[in-house]
């Protein structure tokens, strides 16, 4: 692992900062502490937590105990009871779920085979290289063949600062015919100490396997969120990426599905919200590298208060991927004149026996829609929130219920005062 880190550091130092996306010139690598003791707290007590932070938790309905963790008052929160009983059940099935640090010690062979090798190699991009050098924390999940986990696996279960580290690495291996839904993150704002977040998520879906990775990110707006998430999907495998990017100042995130086996399938559902001072550059990448593969991308973004929201996507059909089909739908809701919405899809079709479709719209909340809802007794803020939630519905309906509820409330909060 040390050798891997040193090699990654070399790569990091040799690559320039990407300039094709949002402005990253504010990043000062010398200022960043690359390893912070996870038990170090941001606020020394609940009293120190700012009133507006407390208000958000109140409005979203975050349980009392979680609030302290999210505000950085305590370093750990484990939903002990629930977690332990599931842990036992899974252990009996042969499922391995532990922290990434632990996995390096306990399962070195698997780590050697899968960790930043075929999926996200260190040379992939500058931030993957940085991650490769300084990563710590994260989770390791292995699901044995034919094991279908009905309950989602949530990092919520050991919600401690380690798993939410700035350079966390998540490695998920879903063996043949297995099924698993992994949930990471939380809707409520998370106040970190770190200004740069470069996580890497690698998912291996083997033949016939089904994987779903749900993530909601709501970092405080002083954070640069530059992640690399990728899945390798083998024959007849299915991968679903469901994500919401709510917080952070600058986010660059393009979950990628590499469909390398015949009949493999990927579905990407994404929400990006860019409010004042936020720049979201998100999208999806799908590479069809085998025949009979199919994919669908739905991206919903909202820009308000001067925020910038961009969809940047890549769909590639390689030669020989006969019968490949892909469809992308990206919609942007622009709330005012100060904000911007961009759509930059890239379609490369190198196999004529394929069908590639793409549609995008950029719109606003129509005055007639607002008028109608207000005539039914809703306040303007309530009407806006309702319309926005309806706009996001295709993605939100795929989120676990508690996230959906929290997300709806959060949006209600954000949209208050955004109409103008």
């Amino acid at each position, binding site marked *: 692992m040390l050798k891997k880190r040193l090699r990654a550091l070399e790569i990091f130092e040799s690559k320039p900062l990407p300039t094709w996306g949002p402005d990253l010139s504010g990043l000062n690598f010398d200022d960043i502490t690359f390893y912070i003791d996870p038990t170090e707290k941001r606020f020394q007590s609940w009293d120190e937590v700012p009133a507006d932070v407390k208000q958000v938790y109140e409005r979203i309905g975050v349980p009392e105990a979680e609030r302290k963790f999210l505000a950085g008052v305590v370093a750990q929160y484990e939903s002990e009871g629930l977690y332990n009983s599931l842990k036992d059940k899974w252990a009996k099935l042969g499922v391995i779920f532990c922290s990434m640090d632990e996995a390096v010690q306990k399962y070195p062979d698997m780590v050697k085979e899968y960790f930043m090798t075929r999926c996200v190699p260190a040379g992939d991009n500058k931030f993957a290289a940085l991650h490769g050098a300084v990563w710590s924390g994260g989770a390791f999940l292995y699901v044995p063949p034919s094991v279908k986990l009905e309950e989602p696996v949530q990092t919520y279960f050991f919600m401690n600062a380690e798993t939410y580290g700035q350079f966390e690495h998540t490695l998920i291996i879903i063996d043949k015919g297995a099924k698993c839904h992994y949930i990471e993150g939380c809707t409520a704002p998370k106040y970190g100490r770190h200004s740069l977040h470069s996580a890497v998520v690698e998912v291996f879906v083997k033949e016939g396997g089904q994987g779903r990775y749900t993530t909601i990110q709501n970092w405080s707006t002083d954070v640069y969120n530059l992640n690399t998430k990728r899945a390798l999907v083998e024959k007849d495998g299915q991968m679903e990426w469901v994500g919401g990017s709510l917080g952070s100042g600058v986010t660059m995130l393009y979950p990628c599905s590499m469909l390398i086996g015949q009949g493999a399938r990927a579905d990407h559902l994404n929400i990006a919200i860019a409010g004042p001072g936020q720049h979201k550059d998100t999208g999806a990448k799908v590479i069809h590298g085998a025949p009979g593969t199919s994919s669908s991308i739905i991206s919903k973004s909202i820009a308000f208060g001067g925020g910038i929201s961009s969809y940047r996507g890549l769909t590639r059909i390689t030669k020989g991927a006969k019968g490949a089909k892909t469809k992308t739908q990206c919609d942007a809701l622009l709330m005012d004149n100060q904000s911007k919405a*961009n*759509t*930059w*899809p890239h*379609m490369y079709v190198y196999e*004529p026996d*394929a069908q*590639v479709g*793409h549609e995008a719209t*950029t719109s606003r909340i129509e005055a007639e829609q607002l008028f109608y809802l207000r005539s039914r007794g809703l306040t303007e803020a309530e009407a806006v929130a309702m319309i926005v939630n309806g706009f996001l519905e295709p993605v939100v309906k795929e989120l676990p219920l508690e996230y959906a509820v929290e997300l709806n409330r959060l949006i209600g909060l954000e949209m208050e005062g955004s109409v103008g």
Partner: protein
Amino acid sequence: MKTDIRVVIARNDEAVEQVFELTEPGAELKLYVLGRAEAGQKLSAKTRVIHRSPDTKSQTIVRGLALGNGHLSFSGAVELPTGAKGADGRFRADVLLAGPDATAEAFPILEVGENTVSAAHAAAIGRVSDKQLFYLRSRGLTEKEAAELIAQGFFQPVLSELSEKNVKMITKELYEA
């Protein structure tokens, strides 16, 4: 206001960006971008439509046909920056890969900074859609006949909207690019 109609034909050389700016309030533009790549050809077209005034309207219609191992590359941007109040910008690209080794790339771009607009784009690349094939086959054609018929008539929807004089000129350029 009279709609300004322009036609851009995909060429062999390095794609020079053709920029169309709508500077008069209420101006309307209909831009056709056509490309027909035969075996051995690599053609490209790059366009940019910028709405610099309120109430402007644009439609970019791209139709590309690649035969044999021909290659087409289309980049088309529609920009509605702040100030383009009430503007309407649309883009639609249909690229048919009719040859056994035909390939294409498409980059439809939408950049919006003004929220009181209507902006949309759509692109479809690949072989003849299943729906179209089904329809023609239900009328008695074989799959091969259906595909050939569609390729032959591919530019018809666009050409039928232009004047005869222009059609002759455009067809000539299209087939000789």
